[in-house]
C-alpha cells in the first residue's frame, strides 16, 4: 500500500520558564493512502501537538520540532514557510475541536471556503463560490446557496463543524487531520459529523488522521489505532487487534474506563488512577509505570521499546510482552 505519510522519531520540545516540556518524545508512525488512523490518549499526552506538527502549526518558538515527517515523499520539516503554505490547505486539511471558535466570526462561511480555493487552485471568485456551494451540499448543509453567504454565528455547532469540514476538504487534500472533531458536539451530532467524514473519505480517497479520546468513535471508523501516552506511542495496530487484544496496560485501562451497555447498574467504571507524568522531567523508565497496576521492577529504570507483538502490524511498548515476563493473562504481574 502506498504510504502517504511517514513520521520518524518526531520530537517536539517547548521551551517554557520552568525548563523544556518534551511534549512529543520520539514518535514513529505512518499513514497509508485512503485509510483512517486514530491517535488516542488522554489530555496532554501529545496527540494534538503531534497532529499540529504534521502541518507545522505548532508555534515555533517556543516549540522546537525535530525528526522527520515525510509527506508524499517530501520532508515537511525542512520546507520553507512559503512552501508550507502550499501544503497547508492544499495537500493537508485540518479540522479543529471547537467549531464555535475555529471559524472567523467576521467572514462569511463562503468566503472562508473560497479563500483557500482562490489561493491554491487559482479559481476565480465565481467558480470558487460555486465550488463552496457544492462543498456545503456535500457536507450536508441544507440550502447551501443561501447558507454560503451567512456568517458563522448564524450556524449551529454541528453545522459549523460541517462548515469546517467543507473548508478543510475544499481543495481535496490527500490527508485530513481531524483534531477531536466531535468532542465539542452533541452526541447525536457527533455521529452525523463522523458519517460526513467517512462519506467524503470514500468519495475523495482522503487519508484521515483522527485525534480523539472517544474510543467509540475509534472503533467505528478507524482502520488502525495509535495509542499515545506521555508523548510516546505505547501501542499501535489494527483497530480490531487493539480492541480485542490490547497489549499495553494503558490501552487496557482506556478500554476499561469506557462505560458499556451490558454493564450492571452498580458495577463501577474502572478509572486509571493518577495523572500523566510531568513532561518537563519525564521518568527514565516507562512513563506509565507510576499508574500501572502491573508495573514491575524493570519498568521504573528501563523504558520499554515499541516492539512487535502478536498480530499483524501490532506493536506495544511494555515489558509485560517480554519473553521473561509473566503471561499477561495470569493474575498479578508484580514479579519480574
Amino acid at each position, binding site marked *: 500500500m502506498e504510504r502517504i505519510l511517514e513520521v520518524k522519531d518526531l520530537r517536539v520540545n517547548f521551551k517554557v520558564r520552568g525548563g523544556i516540556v518534551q511534549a512529543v518524545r520520539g514518535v514513529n508512525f505512518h499513514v497509508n493512502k485512503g485509510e483512517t488512523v486514530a491517535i488516542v490518549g488522554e489530555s496532554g499526552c501529545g496527540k494534538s501537538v503531534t497532529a499540529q506538527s504534521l502541518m507545522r*502549526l505548532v508555534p515555533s518558538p517556543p516549540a522546537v520540532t525535530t525528526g522527520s515527517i515525510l509527506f508524499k515523499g517530501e520532508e515537511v520539516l525542512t520546507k520553507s514557510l512559503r512552501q508550507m503554505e502550499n501544503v497547508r490547505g492544499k495537500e493537508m486539511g485540518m479540522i479543529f475541536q471547537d467549531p464555535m471558535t475555529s471559524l472567523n466570526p*467576521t467572514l462569511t462561511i463562503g468566503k472562508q471556503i473560497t479563500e483557500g480555493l482562490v489561493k*491554491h487552485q487559482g479559481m476565480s471568485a465565481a467558480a470558487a463560490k460555486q465550488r463552496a456551494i457544492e462543498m456545503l451540499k456535500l457536507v450536508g448543509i441544507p440550502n447551501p446557496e443561501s447558507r454560503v453567504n451567512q*456568517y458563522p454565528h448564524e450556524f449551529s455547532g454541528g453545522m459549523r463543524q460541517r462548515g469546517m469540514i467543507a473548508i478543510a476538504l475544499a481543495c481535496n487534500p490527500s490527508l485530513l487531520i481531524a483534531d477531536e472533531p466531535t468532542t465539542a458536539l452533541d452526541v447525536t451530532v457527533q455521529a452525523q459529523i463522523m458519517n460526513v467524514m467517512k462519506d467524503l473519505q470514500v468519495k475523495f480517497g482522503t487519508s484521515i488522521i483522527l485525534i480523539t479520546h472517544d474510543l467509540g468513535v475509534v472503533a467505528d471508523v478507524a482502520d488502525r489505532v495509535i495509542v499515545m501516552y506521555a508523548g510516546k506511542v505505547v501501542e499501535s495496530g489494527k483497530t480490531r487487534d487493539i480492541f480485542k487484544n490490547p497489549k499495553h496496560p494503558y490501552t487496557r485501562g482506556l478500554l476499561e474506563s469506557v462505560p458499556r451497555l451490558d454493564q450492571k447498574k452498580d458495577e463501577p467504571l474502572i478509572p486509571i488512577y493518577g495523572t500523566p507524568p510531568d513532561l518537563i522531567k519525564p521518568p527514565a523508565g516507562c512513563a506509565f509505570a507510576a499508574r500501572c497496576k502491573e508495573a514491575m521492577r524493570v519498568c521504573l529504570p528501563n523504558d520499554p521499546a515499541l516492539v512487535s507483538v502478536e498480530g499483524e502490524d501490532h506493536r506495544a511498548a511494555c515489558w509485560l510482552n517480554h519473553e521473561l515476563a509473566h503471561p499477561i493473562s495470569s493474575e498479578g504481574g508484580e514479579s519480574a
Partner: protein
Amino acid sequence: MIRFLLKKLFYMVVSLFVLASATFFLMKIIPGNPFMSEKEIPKAIRAMLEAKYGLDKPLWSQYLTYLNNLIHLDLGMSMKQQYTTVSSIIGTGFLYSLQLGIFAIILSVTAGIVLGIIAALNHRKFLDTFTIFIAVLGVSIPNFVVASGLQYFLGVKLRWFDVAGLNDPTDYVMPTIALAVLPAAFIARLTRSSMLEVLTADYIKTARAKGMSGRIILYRHALRNAILPVVTYIGPMTANIITGSVIVEQIFGIGGLGKFFVNSITNRDYTLIMGLTLFYAVILMLARFLTDIAYAFIDPRIKLSSRKEG
C-alpha cells in the same frame, strides 16, 4: 434600520432635553452673573442689562423662554461679546477645532494602529517593548508638556515651524502632533492587546491551516476582529478632539472652541455656556451613533436593530 435610526434620534432628543435643563439650572446655581465685575455697575444700568437679557424675569419663565428658543435652534446672543450670536462664535471656533481635530484623528488612528500591530507581531521582542515604552510615555505625558516641548525644539531651536498661530499650512503640524500623541498612544496599546488576543484565537490557526499567507491572516482575519475595541474608543475620542482642546489651543494661540468653553464659564456668559454644552453633546452623540454603525459594518454579529441604546 429606519426603526433603529428613529429610536436613536428619539433618545438623542431626550438626552439633549435633560442635558439642557440640567445645565440651565446648574448654571443658575453658580454664584455670580454675567454683569459682575471688579467695578460695581450702577444699579440702574444693571437693571437695564438684566431686563435686556430677560434675567429679571422669574426662573421658570427664563427656562421656558430658553427652551422655546432652543426648539427654534436659536442659541441667543453672547452676553459678553457685543453683537455676536452664540452660533457665530461656535461657527468660527469650530472651524479651527474641526480642522485641527481631523488632522489629529487621522494621525492618531493611523499611528496608533500601526504601532499596535508592530508591537503585537513582535510580542515580547525589542520592538514590542520599545513601542510600549513610547506608548506609556505618550499616555502619561500631559499634552501641554508635549505642546511646549514641540514649540521649544521645533519652533524656537530648529525654527522649522512658527511657534503659534494658524496662518500657514505648516502651522498645523505642531498642534496636530500635540493633540494626537495621547490618543495615538492609547490606540496603540488597545490595538496591541486586542491583536495579541485575536492572534491566539482558534480561527487564526484555521486560517494558517488553510495555507493563508501571513499578510492575509493579519489583514483579513486578525485585524478586523481586533479593531472593535479600538472603534469603541475612537467614537468618543473623535468628539473630544474636534470640539477642541483648551490647553493646546491656548498654547498655540488658536481661536478654537476649547478656549471659548473655559472663558464662557469664567465670564458667566450664560448663553454661550449653554450653547457650547449642547453643541458638545450633539457632537458626542453623533460620534457614538457613527460608532454604532461602524460596529455593524465590522462585526456581522452586531445588528443595528437589536442593539440596545448604549
